[in-house]
């Protein structure tokens, strides 16, 4: 609850601040709060990724981008009514959806009765890896992780193509 309140406060701060430098710092704080939420939810692997990627690397990269662009946000030229309507509508639908979810940690959800338990039981005898997250990521769902790695690869190649070509021209 404290974390969620802080998250809301940081979000309002991000929206209201015009100085992009402050926004970047607040985004880093937001990522760290999000990582803490993940730890509360016992998702330590996700928390670690969020803390290192969200709060660490993206902050550095966005600061690098700020170095190339202006530091102040331009005032908006459009009214906020339509975006506000869309945001409130989406939020309402999401809250309605959350009310239909099973209780947190309930044992009879599809999450805990379907393949999840099977992986928990099979991980040590089949792969010898106690951390089930790793065995699912790297072994059972290795194909998905290959896709993720390919996404990183593609992103890197894309950025290199864009920025490198520019540097040669200028």
């Amino acid at each position, binding site marked *: 609850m404290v974390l969620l309140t802080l998250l809301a406060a940081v979000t309002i701060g991000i929206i209201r601040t015009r100085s992009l430098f402050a926004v970047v710092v607040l985004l880093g704080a937001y990522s760290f709060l999000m990582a803490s939420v993940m730890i509360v939810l016992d998702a330590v692997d996700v928390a670690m990724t969020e803390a290192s990627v969200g709060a660490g690397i993206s902050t550095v990269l966005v600061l*690098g981008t700020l170095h190339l662009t202006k530091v102040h946000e331009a005032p908006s030229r459009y009214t906020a009514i339509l975006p506000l309507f869309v945001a409130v509508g989406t939020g309402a639908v999401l809250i309605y959806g959350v009310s239909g979810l099973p209780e947190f940690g309930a044992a009879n959800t599809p999450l805990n009765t379907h393949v999840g338990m099977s992986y928990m039981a099979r991980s040590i005898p089949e792969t010898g890896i106690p*951390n089930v*997250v790793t065995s699912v990521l790297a072994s059972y769902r290795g194909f998905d992780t290959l896709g993720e*790695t390919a996404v990183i690869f593609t992103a890197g190649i894309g950025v290199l193509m864009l920025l490198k070509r520019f540097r040669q021209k200028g």
Partner: protein
Amino acid sequence: MRLDVVLRVATKLFLPYILMFALYVQFHGDYGPGGGFQAGVIAAAAVILYAVIFGLSEAHKAVPPAVVEAMVPLGVLLYVGVGVAAMLTGSNFLDYSHLAHDQIHGQEWGVFLVEAGVLITVTGTMIAIFYAFAGRGKT
């Protein structure tokens, strides 16, 4: 820039521990939280810290851009290579069970190599993107 000395010394003290932690996250991923993605980002953060404190040219000397750019596809190739090697042993693509003399060891090798592939690509990509941004900022 009067505090430069403090920053330089503190960075030099920190760097080995950051790299050590990256390796710990990488190789302890089987037992605790972590794995290739996280370790790759932490290792990249160490290089970025070095570049921020000591300047881009020093970082280019320590970690040449050509090496970094080679790492980006190398990791994916290693990952796919493990998959193909698994196929050559008679299993499905990315099924590591027959990579070693028994299933547990095969899985261990497979997961180890795959995570290494992820580490190489993630580290390479993060440093390459940072180099690209920082290099443009200078000109």
